[in-house]
């Protein structure tokens, strides 16, 4: 597809994961961001799905490689491979179902157990368009996000509200982490060659893609 051709030209490749309970709208957030599509009746995700999109962050082209996973508990063991190499995560709940917010804590725990401590996490309250059904007050989620030191945003994949902003913010913050790391590595200015992929994990699946380097070692 022509839209993906330009993807090959990028400065950074960042792997993001979408996690959260089943039915909170992870797949639709992804398709809204990657293809500007929304499907009211989409099939449940089994295993993992995958999409990419490149955006400009500061003066760099950042290619986001976004992984969408199944929400059900049973699939978590199998999906642990999908966390490998992730540098950003959108932890999604449904603003109209409080239980999905209650489970955020468990997701966070799992995410932190499987990823590098520098991972950029955003708590995302999706389905904000269902205003009459709201079950999770914005303030409650905001307070939680502050406590857990994550970013926070409410979105609506259906109305295309804040979806672009949420992804862009996460990618921007990752870029900042990378830049900061580059500064920290100041002892040896040549330690971080330009135009490389950030890799905060160990050997990851992203490494199958070209231009991979490791700046966290």
């Amino acid at each position, binding site marked *: 597809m022509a839209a*993906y051709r330009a*993807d090959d030209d990028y400065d950074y490749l960042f792997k993001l994961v979408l996690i959260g309970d*089943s*039915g909170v709208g992870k797949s639709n957030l992804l398709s809204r961001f990657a293809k500007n599509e929304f*499907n009211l*009746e*989409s*099939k*449940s995700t*089994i*295993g*993992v*799905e*995958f999409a*990419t999109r490149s955006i400009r962050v500061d003066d760099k082209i950042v290619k986001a*490689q976004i992984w969408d996973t*199944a*929400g*059900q*508990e*049973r*699939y978590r*063991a*199998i999906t642990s*491979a*999908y966390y490998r190499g992730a540098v950003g995560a959108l932890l999604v709940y449904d603003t109209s179902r409080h239980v999905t917010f209650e489970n955020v804590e468990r997701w966070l725990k799992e995410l932190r157990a499987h990823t590098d401590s520098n991972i950029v996490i955003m708590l995302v309250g999706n389905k904000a368009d269902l205003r009459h059904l709201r079950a999770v007050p914005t303030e409650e989620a905001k307070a939680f996000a502050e406590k857990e030191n994550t970013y926070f945003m409410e979105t609506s994949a259906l109305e295309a509200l804040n979806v672009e902003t949420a992804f862009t913010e996460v990618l921007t913050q990752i870029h900042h982490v990378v830049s900061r790391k580059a500064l920290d590595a100041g002892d040896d200015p040549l330690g971080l060659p330009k135009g490389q992929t950030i890799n905060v994990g160990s050997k990851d*699946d992203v490494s*199958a*893609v*070209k231009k991979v380097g490791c700046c966290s070692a």
Partner: protein
Amino acid sequence: MVKKRLPDWLNSPMWSSPTVTTSPPPKSRSLSPPPPPPSSSNDDRYGIGSYPSKSSSVTSSDSSLNEPHVPLPPPTSIKQEPTPKTRIRDSSTRSVNSDNDVSSSIEDVSRQAQLLEEIINIGELRQLCLLGIPDAAGIRSTVWKLLLAYLPTDKGLWSSELAKKRAQYKQFKENLLMNPTSFSMILNVSVASQSEITRTFEVSASLKNGDLSEGKGLLERSKIPHGEHPLSLGKTSIWNQFFQDSEIIEQIDRDVKRTHPDIPFFSGDSASSKANQESLKNILIIFAKLNPGIRYVQGMNELLAPLFYVFRNDPNEDSLVNAEADTFFCFVELISGFRDNFCQQLDNSIVGIRSTISRLSQLLKQHDEELWRHLEVNPQFYAFRWITLLLTQEFNFSDSLHIWDALLSDPEGPQETLLRVCCAMLILVRRRLLAGDFTANLKLLQSYPSTNVSQLLYLSNKLRSC
């Protein structure tokens, strides 16, 4: 013996040009060999009576993959004299709507499928179904029930067996599908420990009555059986069980609504689609309650859908109205062959999903080492869904029914057959995979291009272990 594992025909454009013909009649001209599939001049290559059986491909000195199979005459059977109307079997295997001439040939087809025999030879039936069962005339409905051993091979036993099973299902429904807020449901959460729970509840109910009769109006907390209160976190608490149940039921509800959203039979607001969704829900809830070790796993809805669709569209009125009960038992049978894939505890065991996926990888290595070497995509990222859902999300619905014909009928069993079909899927797009990088390949395999399924099954048959 062929030493080289990669015959030239693997590189034939036939395997890599994405065939846009999603449902053509499977005639040889659309396949443009090499290798020429069995000659189809008699137009019934895909008729259920004529595909070379497994034994025939072994005995026809077909050690070289370059050599086309030679179609053998249908296995001999007293009632299987060829009829002039073989074309119906050919055309009807491809399209749900192609039911011209159907009424006049139902008998032919039934005869070919052995359905008119008194005692059905299941081995022969399997051979007949390998490359597809006709869509018309309810043949598939009956044959799947036979292949899943829901129907006995002795036709004389059918009506009594069906009556027994359907009554049993009715019983399940009455016992397990109560109003979720009633105690009855709680009492029935687990069949295994039912009597124990019932007893517990009788105890607490009598306590409650006693309290009320004394005019206190409040339960004395100390008298509530230990751990049996709504806030109990104990795993054995019936309340805990109750909340887990409602969680599962909500999950089932969500997934049933998302089952084939593009097919009116399953989705939309029509009365019939609502009723169909209700049936799917009932089956999944009953299954979850009867199988506490597995309960409901996302994706089971996708395995249930083809069975229910096929049975619910059976022209036989009796089969049609009992589709829910019949589907339940066939679903149990189907899933029993794959249940390890759904079981989290077995993920890392020799029978779990990871091990199944590595077997696919080994199979690919065996048949196409070059492709195996090149594919750097972790097979979990695509094959997990292929295997868990038995390919129902990779193809359009009627094509996946055809693939299921092969899965259910192949004498090697559904799991082995599934792995062969998955391997064939990889080989069919090998040229694109060899040319692609990680991202392109993952996208290709997660969104498999539309394919001529007959061609796919033909190739998968060739991969039969030598």
